[in-house]
């Protein structure tokens, strides 16, 4: 048994393969998200489908098992559309899924493609009424004159059926491609962001939204910067942030003005002049921004690193983690094959003590903020047999490659892990590798 990383409590933990799921080969997973309790895990794919997994209760008979995730519900969220005026197809690919906090027995989530956001209700049905008076068990209507007695229908248990129904459709508010949605802490509103604008919606109202950020220049020729991600503050319902393609983050307060064009805070790290190149701006473009659960920090992902920012300090991040610094010398090639434009996401663990993000070759990286240790793991079939322990991976940067190390030139840049999610309470992670979903848990030795 190998011990690899120390996460909290200084106890050695190993990461196990809990289960992995094979999705339809033609569909690439495009988003992964746990709900607030961690009981449900939603995935969206390029074909517009949403697949929800449910964490099954641990079996009393086998307590050492943490419980498995099984398919809970599958539904088609978005269909491909065609914009006839522009002769462009609107992709049905699900860009983001965000859960709403659970308020009753049903679950609600928002899913969005490039243009339209939908609110879905996922509810269970495990009972069925039997003994109708006016129709028999087949559903055929009974002849009213034949009915001689009345009875009260009885609820009988049935096989669990999970139904998904669209409750709201928020459409026609975005000219450009939606890249983010974020539910506000008031649980009544949410924001949606595209390349140039951010809108604020009320969950009950679909025919209007408030435009709160607009960076579209009067003359599109002058466009040099776009919005790349946006998120609501987890605790303060009036605060949200949005990141840009120039590596800046703006924190805005909706109480200040109707149109939040002037940010309350502006986060940008001064550029290191010694490392300036033609690719500096591209690799500084922020692909994801996430608040910590505490609301005190936020994390940004650019092409080569992950940065943790203290909301009270705007001039530089408090922590910087290199994800794959060995790619810095390959930027030209990565620019040529467009990999430099890949948008990696990042996530916090439940206690904000660790962060995770993906890389190439189906590698993903975890950083412990307290111990400053990091680990590289691989999401692959070979190394992920059920209950198998994951072996840490290493990329050799120098000339001499040690055994078990992989050289930079051998990395598969088609295998990229863009989407990862961390269970809000437990050490369970979901990693999307193209069309495969891996779920890992840690096992305490």
């Amino acid at each position, binding site marked *: 048994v190998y011990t690899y990383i120390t996460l909290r409590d200084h106890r050695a933990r190993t990461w196990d393969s809990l289960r992995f799921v094979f999705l339809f080969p033609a569909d690439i997973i495009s988003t992964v998200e746990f709900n607030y309790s961690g009981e449900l895990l939603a995935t969206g794919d390029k074909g517009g489908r949403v697949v929800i997994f449910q964490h099954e209760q641990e079996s009393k008979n086998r307590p050492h098992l943490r419980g498995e995730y099984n398919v809970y519900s599958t539904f088609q969220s978005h269909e491909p559309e065609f914009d006839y005026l522009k002769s462009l197809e609107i992709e049905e690919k699900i860009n983001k899924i965000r859960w709403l906090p659970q308020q009753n027995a049903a679950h609600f989530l928002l899913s969005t493609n490039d243009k339209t956001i939908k609110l879905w209700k996922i509810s269970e049905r495990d009972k069925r009424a039997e003994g109708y008076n006016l129709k028999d068990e087949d559903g055929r209507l009974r002849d009213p004159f034949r009915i001689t007695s009345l009875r009260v229908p009885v609820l009988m248990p049935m096989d669990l059926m999970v139904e998904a129904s669209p409750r709201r459709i928020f459409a026609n*508010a975005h000219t450009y491609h939606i890249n983010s949605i974020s539910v506000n802490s008031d649980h009544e509103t949410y924001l949606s962001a595209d390349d140039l604008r951010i809108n604020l919606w009320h969950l009950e109202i679909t025919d209007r939204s408030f435009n709160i950020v607009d960076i579209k220049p009067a003359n599109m020729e002058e466009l040099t910067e776009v919005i790349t991600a946006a998120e609501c503050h987890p605790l303060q319902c009036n605060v949200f942030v949005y990141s840009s393609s120039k590596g800046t983050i703006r924190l805005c307060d909706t109480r200040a003005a109707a149109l939040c064009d002037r940010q309350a805070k502006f986060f940008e790290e001064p550029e290191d002049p010694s490392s300036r190149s033609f690719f500096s701006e591209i690799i500084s473009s922020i692909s994801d921004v996430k608040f910590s659960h505490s609301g005190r920090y936020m994390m940004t992902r650019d092409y080569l690193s992950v940065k943790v920012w203290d909301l009270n300090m705007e001039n530089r991040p408090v922590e910087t983690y290199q994800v794959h610094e060995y790619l810095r010398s390959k930027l030209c090639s990565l620019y*040529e094959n467009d990999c430099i434009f890949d948008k990696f996401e990042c996530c916090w663990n439940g206690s904000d003590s660790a962060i995770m993000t993906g890389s190439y070759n189906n590698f993903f990286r975890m950083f412990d903020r307290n111990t400053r240790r990091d680990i590289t793991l691989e999401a692959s079939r070979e190394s992920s047999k059920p209950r198998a322990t994951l072996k840490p991976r290493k990329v050799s940067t120098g000339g001499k490659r040690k055994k078990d190390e992989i050289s930079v030139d051998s990395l598969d840049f088609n295998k990229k892990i863009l989407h990862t999610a961390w269970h809000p309470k437990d050490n369970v992670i979901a990693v999307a590798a193209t069309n495969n979903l891996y779920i890992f848990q840690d096992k305490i030795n």
Partner: protein
Amino acid sequence: MLRSVGYLTVCSFSSPAPQRDTMFPKGTKRKFSDSGEEPVSSGDQVPAAPSVATRSLTSSYSLQRQSLLDMSLIKLQLCHMLVEPNLCRSVLIANTVRQIQEEMTQDGTWQIMTQALAAAQCPTDRLVATEVLCRQTDAAAQAGQSPKPFSVGGLEEGYHAEEVVMEGDVETEVTMSTLAPVSPQLSSASYLAGPFVMGPCWDEDEEEEEEEEEEEDGECEEDEEDDSEDCVSEGEEADRDHLSPDSRTGEQVFGTFEIKHPAPPPDPALEELFSDVDPSYYDLDTVLTGMQSAPKMGPYDLLESLSSHGPTALSSSSSCRSDLNELDHIMEIIVGS
């Protein structure tokens, strides 16, 4: 392994790949031999200048920079082949091109290159090149829109999609249908046009522009001596087509665009298309200038418009010339010669 794009080889910025070495000298040589051998039609060819430029241009860094520039322009030009026109990606590539252009302008290589290109002859096989490069979606062609791989006027095309009417919200913008579908090629490249590229000149008929091209050739060249800032800034507002070629070969290149759409100029098609739309809904900035931009620009006219954001651009004379040698160079890459 790093996946290499079909027509480009993997390059390394630390040292030029062998293929680059063989490619560049050919192109570079042509530039400088052209600039040295051509008659002084441009008026300001200084024999000493090419040697200085030669030194800087043949340096490893300059070659890599040129390679990056070519690559970026191809990416923008061929955006229409992508399934999804990605605004963020296009903006980042355009910014990279601007950055290179600014740097090249500062060390003087930009002007030399454009001057050399202006004087360069344009072989007929370039017409084929433009056919390949200008290929656009059928839908766009059917819609009657002229192909504008680097349409200057286009601009907002691909980005400026419709503004949406929100029911019940009076303050939101009025719905405006974007014009005929724009090839993403256009959309991605169009916005790159610098601020001074625009101009009402794109609103004019093709015929008018043709005439203007020939007229302005001389003007352009003259201005070039005066550091052509006038050339650029005038291009912004004046009706002259500052992107006009200054040689017959240039017209041949532009001619291919015209050949592609020998039909009446866009105006009638557009008018017909929008005859039933209330003109008051039009956003003139985006619709008229965008749709009526003539397919006069060569693929590298885009570069000229990227010189700077401001109206007073330094890379002046470039706006008066088409970057034909760049086109040839790109064709070599594509055809694999």
